């Protein structure tokens, strides 16, 4: 089930929440677990079994590690269970997500004719395997205590708000709020959660979907309708699509968590206004970055074992980060691209960039980030890196000039929206909103009512526009009487 569809918005979401609030404390976690399983099973009923398997395995491993810890066998039997957990989780991920990628790569490399497996990617597996892994590793390290209640543990793994697109919630993040009694929230909290949810929905439906539509429209322009500038414009729209899509989903997840009394970690912090690549990765998909830092980079020694070892560690982390995003060499290349950039920044580039004026720092960052998306978006193995090449004029009909083809028309049509996306991706609207509220507080006596009215009105407009957009998205004139 997707957050931006009518089944979720018009049925699942309101019904779930109303019942959740009506139920007594004792029933809330069970309801959340059942609802989450239903949510997951909606799209792929069979794959819910894999998730149940994952729950059972990691619950058992956690309990076993705890049990043998108490018996003083932390480093022997406890470690064996940790390794078992890692092998099983990574094994599941590899089998379902990467098996065919490995087979294809082997075939391409050695000319073997191995057939593909008939598996498809269970939705959200990249997220929930990382979440359960964080649990067993943290239990082993003694950071969290093993969860005794299988229901609470199952609820942690399946929790639907962050199940399919993050943020990656580590067990340690929510441990203190797993019991329903520990999740008291006031109507004001719920209101804030709903606000976050609606704004996230708007980001996804109004910005990401529209930007995505323009990206695919521009992608369809080929041959003489295409030009280098047009490719750049398309990649820009893609950059905004992926940001608003991903951060919109995260906002919806965080908002829904808030409505139930959870506090999920933040996932995006206006990454496109970063002033270096290093800063970009501190603001983009933050929970993934911290997961790799916590569970791969630091355990491998981080920067404590000399620059050579650090380079090796960084290489591995970024190789894996790339691969995590998808089973394709373009994603690996994209990860390694950031390895090179980040390593260069560590060596000297950061100091060089630091001397630039602020605006140039941003241009520098955005340029390389956009270039990165130019690699990321090349997921068609039959035309490797065609987008990246296009950004530099490779494979482009240059008879009409760099700004020829449909570029002039497209930029005229879409410049206002592009500017809107650019502004909306920064912290400017939030700051302006804050300033406005401050002004109201200074002028008005009964400020909370005014602010409430303004906010409620704004949220309702965003919600209505989102629904209109979703419903009209299904509008599909099938004009076979074309002739």
């Amino acid at each position, binding site marked *: 089930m997707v957050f931006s*569809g*009518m*089944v979720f*918005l*018009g*049925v699942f*979401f*309101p*019904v779930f*929440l*109303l019942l959740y609030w009506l139920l007594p404390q004792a029933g809330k976690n069970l309801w959340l677990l059942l609802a989450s399983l239903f949510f997951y099973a*909606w*799209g792929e*009923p069979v794959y819910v079994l894999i998730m149940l398997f994952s729950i059972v395995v990691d619950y058992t491993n956690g309990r076993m590690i705890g049990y043998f810890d108490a018996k003083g066998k932390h480093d022997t039997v406890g470690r064996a269970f940790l390794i078992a957990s890692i092998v099983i989780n990574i094994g599941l991920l590899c089998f379902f997500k990467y098996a065919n990628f490995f087979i294809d790569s082997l075939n391409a490399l050695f000319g073997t004719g191995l057939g593909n497996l008939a598996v498809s990617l269970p939705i959200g597996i990249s997220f929930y395997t990382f979440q359960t892994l964080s649990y067993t590793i943290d239990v082993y390290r003694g950071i969290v205590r093993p969860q005794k209640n299988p229901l609470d543990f199952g609820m942690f793994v399946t929790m639907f708000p962050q199940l399919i697109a993050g943020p990656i919630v580590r067990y340690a993040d929510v441990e203190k709020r797993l019991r329903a009694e520990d999740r008291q929230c*006031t*109507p*004001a909290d719920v*209101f804030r959660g*709903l606000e976050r949810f*609606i704004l996230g929905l708007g980001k996804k439906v109004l910005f990401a979907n*529209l930007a995505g539509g323009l990206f695919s429209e521009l992608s*369809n*322009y*080929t*041959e*003489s*309708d*295409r030009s280098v500038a047009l490719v750049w414009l398309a990649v820009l729209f893609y950059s905004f699509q992926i940001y608003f899509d991903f951060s919109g989903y995260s906002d919806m997840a965080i908002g829904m968590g808030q409505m139930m009394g959870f506090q999920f970690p933040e996932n995006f912090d206006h990454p496109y206004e970063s002033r270096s690549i290093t800063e970009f990765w501190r603001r983009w998909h933050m929970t993934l970055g911290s997961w790799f830092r916590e569970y791969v980079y630091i355990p491998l020694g981080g920067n404590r074992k000399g620059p050579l070892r650090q380079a090796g560690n960084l290489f591995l982390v970024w190789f894996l980060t790339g691969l995590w995003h998808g089973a394709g060499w373009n994603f690996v290349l994209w990860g390694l691209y950031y390895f090179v950039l980040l390593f260069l920044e560590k060596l000297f580039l950061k100091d060089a960039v630091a001397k630039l004026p602020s605006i140039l720092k941003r241009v520098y960052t955005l340029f390389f980030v956009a270039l990165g998306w130019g690699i990321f978006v090349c997921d068609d193995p039959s035309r490797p890196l065609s987008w990246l090449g296009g950004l530099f004029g490779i494979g482009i009909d240059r008879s009409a000039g760099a700004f020829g083809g*449909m570029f*002039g*028309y497209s930029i*005229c*049509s*879409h*410049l*206002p*929206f592009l500017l*809107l996306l650019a502004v909306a991706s920064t912290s400017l609207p939030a700051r302006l909103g804050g300033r406005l509220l401050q002004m109201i507080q200074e002028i008005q006596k009964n400020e909370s*009512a005014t602010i*409430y009215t303004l906010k*409620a009105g704004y*949220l*309702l407009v965003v*919600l209505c*526009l989102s*629904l*209109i*957009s979703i*419903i*009209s998205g*299904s*509008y*599909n*004139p*099938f*004009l*076979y*009487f*074309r*002739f």
Partner: protein
Amino acid sequence: MQYKEKNKKYIHYQIFIAMVLLFLLFCGGIGILTGEKQFSEMENRYLTSFSVPHLAEILDGKAQEQLEQALEDQFPWRDACVQISVSLKRLLGAKDAGGVYFGKDGHLIEKKLSSQLPYERYARNRKFITAAMEELHQQGDEAGWTLVLVPFPGSIDADLLPAGAREFDEAGYREQAAGAEEPDQKQAAAAGAEKELDLYAQFREKREAGKRLYFATDHHYNASGAWEAAQALREMFHLPEKKQEDFGMEQVTDAFYGTLYSKAPLPEIRPDSISIPTKLPELSVEIDGKPVDAGAEPDGGAAGAAAEAGEAAEPGGKAAGAEAEAGGHRLWQIYDMEKLRTKDKYAVYFGGNYGKVVIRKKASAKPSARRSGMHSGKARRICVIKDSYANSCVPYLFDTESFPDEVAELTMIDLRYFNDSFQELAAQEQYDEILVFYEMSNFIEADYFNKLLG
């Protein structure tokens, strides 16, 4: 006291939360409550409806997908949502939607780029036509072939396009094709190559004189455009010179929202009107081999027919009605007036497109036909391989008076629906003339001209 104070502070939050959730529930449930709509006229497609799924459909996720689609399809104010959404996009600067440019003066024009319609496809389809003709000639058939390509609206109405908007280069394509043929033209002429009736210059000239030749909301030409094409054909066939008014033009609707409007439904778009020629000779129509008897002309002419369309039996039409039902159609002259009540109003001509439509001048009504046919050639029999552009043009080829070389029989073949062998049909029928009549972009897009062979 403090608790009460606190609760009071929260009450407006609770109201908002309840309001949002109930509103969402309303949006989700309203489609189920308001009953099921089967068909969307705007989109010309069947809507997904609610149904009880089988276990297998649930297990592979199909039923869930269907429910998702049904909730959106059955939303009662869906068309309004689309209008708002398209308007907002335009407010944000968009100059096209759904593959349709928002042209000047509320004129909608299809967006067709050369990347979608490459020259190679055009050349390939032309080759198919030549090959079909040669194949037929080899069987001893002597029909003259003429290629009639009505210009693409975006080429003629280029002045109405938004700034910077592009279309495929129709003029260039035509020139290139003409140039490519030149070397073996003479040889081909000897072998009796197909002619080409070039309407491009004529349409441009009329457009430059300020004439509107295409509908503003539909991808077809309007009555003026159809008449331009007809005039050129009449000249080619040496039919007597006439004015369009001579055909008794009558406006049958002023509320036509065509296919382009469906794709880009901006609220301020004005509907088109449709005028049809009503002064036609008595014609018999045969659709896919079944005769369709024309009902009696309703009182008050075409306008009256439009008003009466869809109502019960027409006066004196009982037998005719029964006969018509056998074929599934009821026509007045060549018109299906009921279509004027639907969204697809262009289908007033013949009721739409069929594999094979034969139109004959009724000999009995015109006893002079045979007699006058004696002193010169015989009456003409024409075959038109066509798209829907032909439907509104061919009526002008029938004259009320009779004379030698008049068009007495016209067969329209729509290859999308025609599944017999064209070669066999043509060899058997021995037509005098064969026209290949398409709008330019349709012609390039068509992927079925191989049906003309073998």
